[in-house]
């Protein structure tokens, strides 16, 4: 393996929109970095800060949540709640010296396969620019 930093990223995707978009990116054979691993959840309303914290504790370099477009949540407002939780956690992470950019919220519809690929690339680039999670760095040391 090359020495270049390859971040490990967990993405929480809802079954209706973003997970479908991920599948669609697949059927369109859109190529994107391998760094993101998807955890399927029924709705981003199921996203819990505890899960993201678990990811960071386990050594993830970044976490993002991808839900339906705002206003289009199949469960009314799960994605809005998720957005607020993400913002809350970003702030808490910042306070303990972890870059808040390591967690993000995205919205996309089931037909936005290209956008999904774009998000993976974009987020991976962001995390690469940030470097390894400060948590992991010390763990490795």
């Amino acid at each position, binding site marked *: 393996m090359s020495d270049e930093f390859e971040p490990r990223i967990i993405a929480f995707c809802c079954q209706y929109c973003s997970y479908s978009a991920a599948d669609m990116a697949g059927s369109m054979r859109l190529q994107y970095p391998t760094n993101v691993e998807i955890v399927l959840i029924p709705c981003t309303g199921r996203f819990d800060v505890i899960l993201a914290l678990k990811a*960071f504790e386990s050594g993830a370099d970044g976490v993002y949540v991808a839900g339906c477009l705002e206003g289009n949540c199949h469960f009314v407002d799960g994605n809005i709640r998720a957005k607020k939780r993400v913002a809350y956690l970003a702030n808490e*992470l910042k306070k303990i010296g972890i870059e808040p950019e390591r967690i993000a919220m995205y919205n996309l519809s089931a037909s936005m396969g290209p956008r999904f690929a774009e998000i993976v690339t974009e987020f991976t680039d962001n995390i690469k620019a940030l470097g390894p999670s400060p948590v992991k760095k010390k763990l490795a040391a």
Partner: protein
Amino acid sequence: MIIAERKPIDEIKSFIEGQKKVLVVGCRGCVTVCNAGGTKEVEILASLLRLDAQKEGHDVTVDEHTLERQCDPEYIDELVEFVDKKYDAILSMACSVGPQFLSRRYPKENIFPALNTNFIGGALAHGIWAEHCQACGNCIIHKFGGMCPVTRCSKSLMNGPCGGSAGGVCEISKEVECIWHLIATKFMEEGKLEQFAPIQPIKDWSSSRDGGPRKIVREELVK
């Protein structure tokens, strides 16, 4: 119920600086209900502290446990098996009764409050709580249309509203409703102004905390 919120993480970090083994103790009482110190918040705090320690390269253990209540000695006793494991610091996620009870029961332990106890209040909606009582020890809300000016008027006026009341909000902030506006409006709407005309007398604060720390002893209950 008692409404509390978690202290800023920086402050909590400062409590446990240099400690190797930390226990976060939650409470299933009021602070669970107000989303400040239940199992979930304990998990979050513990996780943040672990992350922080890992980030700094410190080998710190942060354990979690949530008690039924931290305002009853019997539940406090339950913690003994944890205390036996020798923690360098114990963070209580209860109202300030919790850390005080813990400190008294386990005088040798380093006990810190992880919450700020804010007020006695209720939930207006999910995620919004408001103060409704300041435990003055002499409830007179029936005189004010079921609203407490002692607590809910910024100046605890007995004969409000003051001249700073504008558009139904208090002069101190647009986010604070003017309780006197509500009280006066209610009486006017109900056509009960005359009932409201007499000047409310000066309040006797001796039953309040101004009368010193309070204690209730119910003799018939005391063994």
